[in-house]
């Protein structure tokens, strides 16, 4: 835990730059919205001003909320997230209008606002992330319950061969999205308390005491349960990846990383042997372009590749391609839609935005001095970064496709709220406790900016 003091004093002037970044992100998002509408219909959309005002209004309101409740927050995370959300929404409008269901995109706009509200609410409620450190086991247990909830008979709903949905009558949601965040908080808390024990080991073999290992084995078991009973490869991969990374960062021992990866490889292999739908996915991944499966099991992957290849370097232009040929293009395959219409440059820009989020998240981890805060930032960042890699790698056919949403961009309500919470926790971690923010707010130059 080498000390890099949080340079709070230096951060103060970030305010105006941050607002400028938010406005630029809004401008790019509104431009994308206008371009997709023009690309589709050839006419300037008449509601673009309303859209611009509403989008910018909400985004700037969110920025002021950060200034108010997390004054010294990282200035990059929020504008980057606004841009990703705005580009994603423009693309969803483009896709859903093309499919004749603009109301689905409007629904996602509402979810984006709900996500923003959750973000602000989380900042207000969690005034100091270290509060969370006090409820290690409560949070861990809650996370476990949410992860396993879909298995409970009568609660879980199976969609596309995976039981990840819980039907609450009005909405179906994926409790695993929330469960994962709670598990990350639990691991950050648990590992920050026990990291010396786990790193040092006792006895001749240098193994940690079973008492210290117990909860970790439980977390590993949970990810296997997710894999086997809920048949959700993507969620399992994320959970396990985050788990292994956090243990490794906490202990500094490579053996955990190697052991963890070996365990996952074994689990994945058993999963491949045991489940036909896993075999189908692996086969589709390997042979998507094979003439025998290209119109069948390989159809979605092949169409994704066709969209990307048709887009080429600069893309067809927003609204000018045919991304709706891809099944589930709005959720799993939205990256391919960007690839077709904005080209390699568009995809690269999108991935770079995520890399910026990851970079800022890890920077926050380095800057914090508290072990829990460090591990929390690492865990949340890894969760976000791995999710992007899993779905982007799946669409690009680097790895077998597992259906996880592209954070902030894909269609999906639960995912938006979950990502908003992850970002809120990172922002709160970067800003430090709220009471410190209140003290700093008394500086006269900042008073004006706060309006």
């Amino acid at each position: 835990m080498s000390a890099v003091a949080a340079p709070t004093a230096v951060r103060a002037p970030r305010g105006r730059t941050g607002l400028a970044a938010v406005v630029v992100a809004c401008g790019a998002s509104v431009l994308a919205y206008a371009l997709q509408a023009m690309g589709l219909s050839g006419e300037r959309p008449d509601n673009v001003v309303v859209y611009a005002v509403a989008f910018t209004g909400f985004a700037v309101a969110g920025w002021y909320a950060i200034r108010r409740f997390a004054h010294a927050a990282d200035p990059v995370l929020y504008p980057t997230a606004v841009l990703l959300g705005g580009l994603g929404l423009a693309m969803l409008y483009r896709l859903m209008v093309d499919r004749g269901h603009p109301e689905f995109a409007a629904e996602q706009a509402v979810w984006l606002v709900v996500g923003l509200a959750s973000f602000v609410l989380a900042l207000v409620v969690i005034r100091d992330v270290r509060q969370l450190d006090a409820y290690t086991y409560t949070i861990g247990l809650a996370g476990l319950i949410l992860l396993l909830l879909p298995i409970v008979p009568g609660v879980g709903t199976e969609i596309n061969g995976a039981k990840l949905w819980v039907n609450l009558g009005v909405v179906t949601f994926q409790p695993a999205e929330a469960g994962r965040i709670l598990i990350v908080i639990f691991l950050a808390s648990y590992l920050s308390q026990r990291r010396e024990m786990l790193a040092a080991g006792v006895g001749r073999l240098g193994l940690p005491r079973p008492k210290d290992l117990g909860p970790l084995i439980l977390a590993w078991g949970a990810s296997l349960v997710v894999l086997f009973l809920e048949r959700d490869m993507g969620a399992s991969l994320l959970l396990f990846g985050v788990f292994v990374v956090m243990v490794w960062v906490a202990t500094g021992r490579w053996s955990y990383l190697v052991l963890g990866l070996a365990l996952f490889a074994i689990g994945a292999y058993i999963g491949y042997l045991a489940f036909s739908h896993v075999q189908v996915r692996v086969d589709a991944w390997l042979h998507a372009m094979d003439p025998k499966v290209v119109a069948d099991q390989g159809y979605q992957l092949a169409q994704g590749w066709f969209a990307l290849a048709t887009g080429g370097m600069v893309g067809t232009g927003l609204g000018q391609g045919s991304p709706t040929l891809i099944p589930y293009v709005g959720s799993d395959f939205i990256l391919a839609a960007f690839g077709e219409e904005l080209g390699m440059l568009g995809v690269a820009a999108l991935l770079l935005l995520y890399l910026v989020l990851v970079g800022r998240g890890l920077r926050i981890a380095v800057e914090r001095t508290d072990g829990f805060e460090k591990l929390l930032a690492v865990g949340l960042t890894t969760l976000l970064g791995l999710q992007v890699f899993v779905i982007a790698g799946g669409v690009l056919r680097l790895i077998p496709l597992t259906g996880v949403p592209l954070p902030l961009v894909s269609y999906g309500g639960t995912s938006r709220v979950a990502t908003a919470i992850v970002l809120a926790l990172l922002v709160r971690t970067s800003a430090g406790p709220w009471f410190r923010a209140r003290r700093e707010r008394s500086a006269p130059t900042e008073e004006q900016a706060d309006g």
Partner: protein
Amino acid sequence: MDRQIRRLGIAFVALFAVLFAQVAYVQVVAADRIANQPANAARQIRAEYAVERGQILAADIKTVLATSVPNKDPDSPYLFVRQYPMGELFGQLTGYYSQIYGRTGLEQAMNPYLAGTAPEFTTQNLTDIIFGRARRGGTVVTTLDANLQRVAREAMGDLQGAVVAIDPTNGDVLAMYSNPGFDPQPLSSGTPAQIQDAWRRVTSDPDTPLVAHAFQDLYLPGSTFKTVTASAALEHGWGPEKEWPNPHHLELDGTDEHIENFGDEFCNGGSKTVTMAQAFESSCNVTFAEIGMRLKAQRMAGQAQAYGFCRTEPTVSPACQDETIPFVLPWEVGHFPDASYFDNNEAALARSAIGLDNDLTNPLHLALIASAIANDGTMYAPRLVTEVRDGTTGQPIKTFGPDEFSHPLTADSARQLRAMMVSVVDSGTGTAARIGGTVVAGKTGTATNGENTPPNAWFTSFAPAGPGQTARIAVAVIVLDGGDLGNEATGGQVAAPIAKQVMEAYLG
């Protein structure tokens, strides 16, 4: 922990680098290969039909052979539909442009220009994108004379076969009509079911209208090939007045076959000797078989190659690999065996000298040969497209000049051969091609067509052919299976009148 966090950062950068590399591979490196897969047909077709495809015009720049009009069906994914106002008249030349069966003819050959994807369009496309204008393909201007094409169709009437008219001075294809042809319209627009239905009809037709008799089929040239044999003799220094023995039959050494004149007639009244000019006028097989054998295989094959005939090895394969005379459309150039084929096989050489055995040609190639003779020995490759124009401004984007192919004979030889061909029309087998007030040069051909099928009737010609006149049109005609005269048909009776009508119409 900070060390691990930094390492984690590096690991993430590495993971994303792998993503970037894969993006570059799929979207740039392998993009064309992936996007052109047949399974991506839906995108390929939508992209094509989103462009207002350029027009194909006749040489007058007014007559529209193919054009794109906005699709009236708002639910169709295709913004434009292709129309062919002239129906089947130019079908085999424009080809079709089908959502299901792809492209043929000029639609295929000129596709990058018609679709506006050729490199010449890059600047225009960029400005179109900047100003938000719809992309528009280029206009293809052809050499075709719509009136002459109509005359050719009327002259053919119900007869199966083909007519090709060439401008000898530059190789321009003035008219090229085959009967039967096909109308590209039903193959290019309509519902998928309608298109499939039209496809079934055209592909199940036993007369194969999708294959143009004029340039995509090959036939025995028969006596029209004597123009090539005569060229070889003249080039060798054996003039038109050189006397040749004139037997009734020519026994072929080493076989029990013989060569006889058409209808087993005596040549030149049965005189003891005959000149090449006299033999040419009456189309005496025996004389030209004799000339071919005396010239020997090397000279015969060399002359054929100079005229663009593709070398074949009939004992190995009937196919031909050489690229000889270039043409914008896929076509079959004539065949003549490699000299080695005639080693110890004089009989084959004798038959080849009179356009039988393994000689093959079609009206387009024959018209090009006539053009070379008409044009003082300079042979042009056929030209069908003269230029591509910007679809909006009409400014020329690319021009295609005349393409000189070879010099198969000297100007002197050409003049001598021209005179020989003029006497064919004046007083020989081709008198049906006479035009009052115009000197016409020609050569008939009547090629056997298997045991029980009537012969194919040929005529190859050009005009005006008086001494010192510049020939303006060369016409070759084939009428399949004897036309309306059946077994009694000759090139002079059946094919020559068709060539005459076309030349007369063109020369006015």
